[in-house]
C-alpha cells in the first residue's frame, strides 16, 4: 500500500468516527433491547471492573456531548490503526522476513 492509500483509508475511518458518530442512533442495540423487553437489563454490572477511560465513548469532563464523542471516537480510531498495524508487524516478524504476497 502506498502512503496515499493509507492516508485515504485512515482518513475515511477518522471521518466516520469524528463526523458521523454524533449522528448515531441512541436507541438500544439488539441485545440491550432484548434485555429490556425480558427484564434482565438490571443484571448488568453497574460499576465497571476496570478504570473508566472513555466511558460510553465520551471524554470525561467534556460537556458538549457530540464533541466529546467525536474526540473519543477519533482517539479510539487512531489507537486501533496503530494497534492493528503493530499487531500485523509483530505477527509478520515472528515468522522472520516478510516477503509473502499471497493470501490466506
Amino acid at each position, binding site marked *: 500500500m502506498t502512503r496515499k492509500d493509507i492516508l485515504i483509508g485512515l482518513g475515511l475511518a477518522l471521518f466516520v468516527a469524528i463526523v458521523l458518530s454524533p449522528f448515531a442512533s441512541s436507541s438500544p442495540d439488539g441485545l440491550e433491547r432484548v434485555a429490556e423487553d425480558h427484564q434482565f437489563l438490571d443484571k448488568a454490572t453497574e460499576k465497571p471492573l476496570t478504570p473508566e477511560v472513555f466511558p460510553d465513548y465520551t471524554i470525561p469532563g467534556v460537556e458538549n456531548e457530540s464533541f466529546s464523542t467525536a474526540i473519543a471516537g477519533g482517539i*479510539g*480510531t487512531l489507537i*486501533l490503526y496503530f494497534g492493528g498495524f503493530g499487531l500485523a508487524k509483530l505477527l509478520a516478524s515472528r515468522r522472520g522476513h516478510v*516477503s509473502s504476497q499471497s493470501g490466506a
Partner: protein
Amino acid sequence: MHIPDGFLNVSVCAATGLAAVAGLGMSVSRSQAALGERTIPLMGITAAFIFAAQMINFPVAGGTSGHLLGGVLAAILLGPWAGALVIALVLVVQCFLFMDGGVLVLGANIFNMAIVGTLLSFLIYKALNRGIGHIPAAAVTAWLSVVLASGTCAVELGISGTVPMGLAIKAMLGWHIVIGIGEAIITCVVLGYVNAVRPDLITTRAEATT
C-alpha cells in the same frame, strides 16, 4: 451485541474464554503466513475502520438500533485468521478503554464475534463464493454472521439462566435478522469501494478463483 458483565455465569465465561483463546491462538499461528508487506498497513486501517463504523448505530425497527460487526468484511480483506485477530483487537480496546462489553465476558464477546462472526462465517463465504460470486456471497454471509453471532450470544444467555433459552434465541434472532441487513449493505458498500480503487487488496480473491 457486546455483552456486559453480569449477563453470563462463571462457567459460560470460562468455557467461552477458553474457546476464544484457542481460536485466537490458532489465528496467530495461521495468520503469519498470510501477512505480507502489503497487508500490514491494511490491518491497521481495517481495525480503525471497523472500530469507527461500530460507533455508528443505525436505527432498525421499533426503537432499536444495530451497528456493523465487521467480521466478514475483515476476513475478506485480510484473510480469516488476521480478520479474526482484528475483530478481537477491536473488542479488547472497546472493553478496556470504552467500557463497551464486559471484562469477564470478553471471551464470550470474542467467541461470538471473532470466532463465530468471522472465522466460521468466512468458511460459509468461501463455500458460497464458488457458487454465487464474490459480492452476493459477501452480502449473504455478512447477514448470516450477525444472525449466527446473536444465536451463540442467545445460547450463552440461556445456559447462564439469565433468560429462558427458547425466549433468548427467538428474541435475539428476531432483532438480528433485521440488523444483519445493515451488515450486508455496509459490507458490500465497503467491498465495492475497495474493489473500485484497489481490487488487489481483496485478499481472498486469488484464493477464491483458483
